[in-house]
Structure formats: C-alpha cells, structure tokens
C-alpha cells in the first residue's frame, strides 16, 4: 500500500502532470469566479481535452479544475451573492453580509483556508478508507454490484430536489439514452434508426457539454439583466485575519469536514446539499449563534470545509464501486471511460497507483488553489461584474467546437444542441439533470452485471445470493422511506393544525 502511495505521488511529480494540474486550477478559478458558470460546466468543457494524454495528467487537469471551481463558486457567493453552483448557496448567508460590511478579504481568506483544511481531511479519509474497502470490494460479486448500481440510481432520485417521481423519471431517461448504439453484450444495435453515427452511441462528453454548458447559457439569456448587482461598503479587512479565523475555529473545521466526507461517501447526494447541511450544523452546534446570517465568519468556514472534504469522500464510491457521488463525479467517470480506466475492484488492485495519484491531486490542487486564491483575494474583492452579452457567445462557441473536437464528427454539434435544449427544459420543469447524467453512467454497469448474474447464477440469482437479496430489500426500503416520512410529516402537521383550531 505504501508503495502505491509513493508511486501515486511520483506519477504526479512530472512536468506534464504538474502543468496540466496548474492549468486546470487556474482555469477552474477563472470559470468558478464567473457568475453563471459552475464546476460542472467547467468539467464538461474540459472533456474534449482528456484524450491521448497520460491518465494522471488528464485527471490532474479535471480534478484540479473541479477543486478550483468549488472555491471559485464560493468567491461568487461571498462577493456577489450569486452562487456559482448550487453547492455554494450556503456561503451567501454570511459571506455576502461580510462583503457588505467591507470584510470581503477576511471572508475569502477564511473560505480558502477552510476549503484547504477540508480538502486535506478528505484526502486523508480517502487514503485510510481504501485498505478497508478493498477486501469488501473483492468479496462482492456481479449480483451485489447490480444491486449497488440500482441503489445508486434510486438514492440519487430520492435526494434530488422537488418531485421524487420526476427524479426517477430523469434517471430512467438517462439509462435509456445510454443504450443508443451497439449493445456490447449481445452485439445488437439499439435505437439507431439506421444511422451509422448513432451506431457508435451518444458521446457522453458531448451530451454533458449540451446538458450543462449550452443549457446554462440559454438559462442565462432567458433570465436576462445583469448577472450580479452589488451594493458593498469600503474594504477594511485583510486576508490574514480570515486565515487566522479558520485556525481559531479548528474544531468547527474538523466537524464540518467529517460531515463533508460523509455526504460525499453517500452515492448520489453530492455536495449540493453539503453546504446547507454544514451551515445548519454550525448554527445548531454553536452556543452564541445569534450572529449567523448577519456576517458571522463561522457561516463561511463551515460550508467551505464541508465542500473541500466532499471530494475525498465522493471519490470513494466513485472509484470503489463505480457509483458517482454526484454530477461532478459522474463526469469524472465519463473521463475514466475515455481513458480506459475501469472503476471497481480492478481499480483498487491493478490501478492502485492511479487511485493514490488522485488522492495526491486533491492535496496538491487544494494547496495550489489556496495559494493562488489567497494571493488574488484582494483583487477578487474588487472584481467587476461580467456581462452575459459577452459570456453567452464565447461559451456557446467553445461548447460547439468542443463537441465537434470530441470525436471529430460534425453530427456531435447537433447532439450538443439537442441535449442543450433537453437540459434547459429539464431545468425549467424540475427534472433533475444530475439524475439523468448518473442514469447514463450507471446504465452500462446495471446491464453488464445483470447479464453476468443471470449467466452465473440463473434467473433466481437473488435467492442464491442472500447479500444481493438483502441489498435489494434495502433499495426498496430507501426508495419508499421518503414517501413514508412525507406522509407521516403531513399527517402530524394536519393533526397539529386540527388541535390548534379546536
């Protein structure tokens, strides 16, 4: 294991990997601090560049960009009250009041330091969890993997915002889209309508570019007006005060980081609700909590530590089970497919050095992000707003050439536009795009493991594999439970209203 940790570190310590990671971090910071673009858009636009290079360098580019966008989106929440991504929503509660008070630099300093400490705790968790998870992984068979993938598919719907049914429908849509093209198991062409282009299947990176980047630009145009409107006081604080704040509240950082790891490990939940949960936890566990919502630095530290730690936690199910922890991890899985890396037991045995290289990428990318972030924070605090009239044509242009560049097929431009429209309307009518993407990624895992299970154990494979049966019952339980809780909650509310009326 120690050998793999060392090999992972050494594979990162080459010029190409370090240059790629640094480019990724700078790109991620730039994209992250542009309100209206988020980490998912950033990663989707990078996918065409992930072919033909060293896997560690490519992963450095993607993960570096992703980590930097997380902090970048915190910057927009703090400075502009516009979360760059849903996960940074909690940062506006106290971050923006600090900016209005003239303490933007302090908030950014605390935010960057908390994210770094959280990221380091997440990376340590990943390193510790691998030797524990590995024997479990090797003991599981295809039937258990099938159940795990089904659980991943249903749990993401359970945790999607809005209607649970819409979440499940979106996931089913993603699964079906993944079946377009040649079935690798039976060699049957499916949903190809006699088109040679469709026989190759829908390119996942192109679909991501459309679903997130093109759709976001459409959303930005429809929303109209300026992206941000600022009303802030004169800057009076320093970045160093914020750094000290993060260390002064070290126990809050540790608590929030562990929460981030836990949320990351739960497949499908991702970081979207992590920030809010961290904020709620900070308010609930602080004795003097009357300043929360008015510019309390702890309201910045807690969500950022959680978001930082979330990556290490999120990588665990992604690498070990092939079940993405969230939409960003789903995009990472798509990159794995392009690089020929197979997550699961093989990854934890044959490609262990790549796993640990990713752990080191989290560590180094967090350090680079923090160093650049802290150095640039005073300048960020004076950032002007960017006009959508500039952003929309530039990003759309990059989307379409990126879609073409993925496979060099001009039809992919049509696919990106089609998925852009689909993504926009899914967003408008609250059908989760994240669920759709995760459905696409898990489809192959579900189908492959179902075929292998039927071949190995026969039609009654669930009865022959008691662990798989128990997991199946667990899948049903976790799908039905939210409905039951909702029903119970409503009944209690009606009873309370009835007793108050009488």
């Amino acid at each position, binding site marked *: 294991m120690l050998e793999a940790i060392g090999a992972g570190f050494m594979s990162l310590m080459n010029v190409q990997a370090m240059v790629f990671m640094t480019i990724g971090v700078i790109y991620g910071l730039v994209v992250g601090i542009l309100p209206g673009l988020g980490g998912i858009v950033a990663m989707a636009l990078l996918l065409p*560049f992930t072919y033909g290079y060293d896997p560690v360098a490519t992963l450095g580019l993607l993960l570096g960009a992703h980590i930097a966008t997380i902090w970048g989106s915190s910057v927009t929440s703090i400075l502009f009250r516009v979360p760059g991504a849903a996960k940074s929503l909690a940062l506006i509660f106290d971050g923006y009041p600090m900016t209005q008070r003239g303490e933007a630099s302090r908030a950014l300093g605390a935010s960057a330091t908390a994210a770094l400490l959280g990221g380091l705790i997440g990376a340590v968790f990943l390193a510790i969890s691998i030797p524990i998870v590995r024997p479990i992984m090797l003991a599981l068979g295809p039937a258990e993997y099938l159940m795990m993938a089904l659980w991943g598919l249903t749990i993401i719907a*359970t*945790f*999607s*915002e*809005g*209607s*649970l*049914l*819409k979440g*499940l*429908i979106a996931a*089913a*849509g993603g*699964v*079906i889209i993944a*079946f377009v093209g040649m*079935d690798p*198991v*039976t060699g*049957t062409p*499916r*949903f190809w309508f006699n088109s040679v282009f469709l026989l190759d299947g829908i390119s996942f990176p192109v679909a991501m570019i459309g679903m997130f980047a*093109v759709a976001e630009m*459409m959303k930005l*145009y*429809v929303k*109209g007006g300026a992206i941000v409107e600022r009303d802030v006081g004169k800057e009076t604080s320093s970045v160093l005060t914020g750094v000290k704040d993060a260390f002064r509240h070290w126990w809050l950082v540790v608590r929030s980081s562990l929460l981030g790891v836990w949320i990351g490990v739960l497949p499908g939940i991702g970081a979207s*609700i992590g920030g*809010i*949960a961290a904020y*709620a936890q900070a308010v609930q566990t602080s004795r003097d909590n009357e300043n929360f919502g008015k510019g309390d630095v702890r309201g910045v530290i807690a969500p950022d530590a959680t978001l930082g730690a979330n990556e290490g936690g999120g990588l665990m199910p992604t690498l070990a089970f092939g079940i993405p922890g969230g939409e960003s991890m789903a995009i990472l899985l798509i990159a794995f497919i392009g690089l020929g890396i197979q997550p699961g037991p093989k990854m934890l045995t044959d490609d262990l050095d790549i796993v640990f290289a990713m752990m080191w990428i989290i560590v180094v990318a967090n350090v680079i992000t923090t160093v650049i972030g802290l150095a640039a924070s005073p300048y960020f605090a004076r950032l002007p707003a960017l*006009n959508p*009239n*500039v952003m929309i*044509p530039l990003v*759309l*242009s990059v989307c*379409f*050439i990126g879609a*073409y*560049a993925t496979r*060099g097929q*001009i039809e992919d*431009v049509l696919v990106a*536009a089609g998925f*852009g*429209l689909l993504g*926009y309307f899914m967003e408008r*009518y609250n*059908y989760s795009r994240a669920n759709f993407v995760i459905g696409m990624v898990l*489809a192959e895992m*579900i189908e492959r493991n*179902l075929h292998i299970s039927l071949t190995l154990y026969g039609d009654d494979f669930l009865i022959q594999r008691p662990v798989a049966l128990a997991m199946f019952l667990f899948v049903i339980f976790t799908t039905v439970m*939210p409905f039951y*809780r*909702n029903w119970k*909650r*409503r009944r209690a*509310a009606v009873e309370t209203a009835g007793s108050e009326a009488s």
Partner: protein
Amino acid sequence: MISRRTQENIVVLLLLAFFVAVFVTSLGFSPRARLVPVPISALAVLLLLVQLFWQNFRPADELNVDLLDVLTARSPTAGVTTDRAESKEDKATAEEEEEASWKRVAIAIGFVALLVVLTLVLGPIPAIFVFTFGYFMVSGHYPLLKAAIYTTVFTLSVYLLFVVALKIQPYHGYLEPLVNYLRQF
C-alpha cells in the same frame, strides 16, 4: 398563455410518448438485448402516469422530498409548505413575466439553432467568428471596432487551441471546395 399545470402536463405527455416508443421499439430486440430497456421504459411509463395523476388531482408538493429533513431529521411539522393566497395583481404580473420569459426562450433556442446552422454550413471556426461578432453587434454591447477586434482575438485563440495545439481536423462545411481551391496555392 397556457398555465403552468398545462405546461407540466404537456411535458409529461411528451415523455410518456417517448418512453412508450422506447418500450415498443425494445420489444423488437433479442431477449437479452431488451432485458434492461423494457423494464426501465415500463417503469418510466408507470411513474409518468402516477406523476400525471398526482399533479392534476393531488397537491404537487406531496411528491417533494425535503433534503434537509431527510438528513437532519427535523421535527415533522418543520418545513411543511402552505399555499399562499395570490392577489389578482400578483397573478397578472406572473402571467406577463411568463409570457416575456417564453419570448426569451424562443430567442435562446433561435441563437443556439443559428450557431448549429452556421457550424454545419461554414465549419466551426468561421461560424464562431460570424456568431460572436453578430451577437456583440445585435446586443449592442461593443461598438463595431471593439467587437471586431475582440471577435478576431477570440476566434484566433480558439483556432490556435483546437486546430494548432490539439490538431483537430477542421470541418469546412460548404466552404470545403473553396478551402481545397486555396490549398492549391
């Protein structure tokens, strides 16, 4: 202007048509190849029918799951949403906003379609130049000269990144004969 509920119903019906088509098409595959598509599409049809019933005959938020409630196990009464009575003026403003929003949606779809057509006809690089310059001019964000300079710099950067650095074989669309002719020199 059609109501939100009608819009939601149209979306469900479109999805229903899609999944029924998937189900019927899948029945034509070999038993192994339809092993997953058939149950998934059937399940989706079932879920859509329940969604259609629910959004028309029951309060839609009964299907919603409160993430914080699930994670933090808040008290059962917390977070229960109540319907807010809307005044006639509120309703009129919302309808006007909805109508304006649809116009903007149509324009957004229009410029995405325009960029697709330009890309297919001219190839990605010339399309980027025409689209970006046109967008700057129509939006009135930059004056002519600034728009031309920024567009040229941007198009050149994209060309250098994709065609020179990444060696992506460019597609020239209907300009292919012209490009071939110019290659002779």
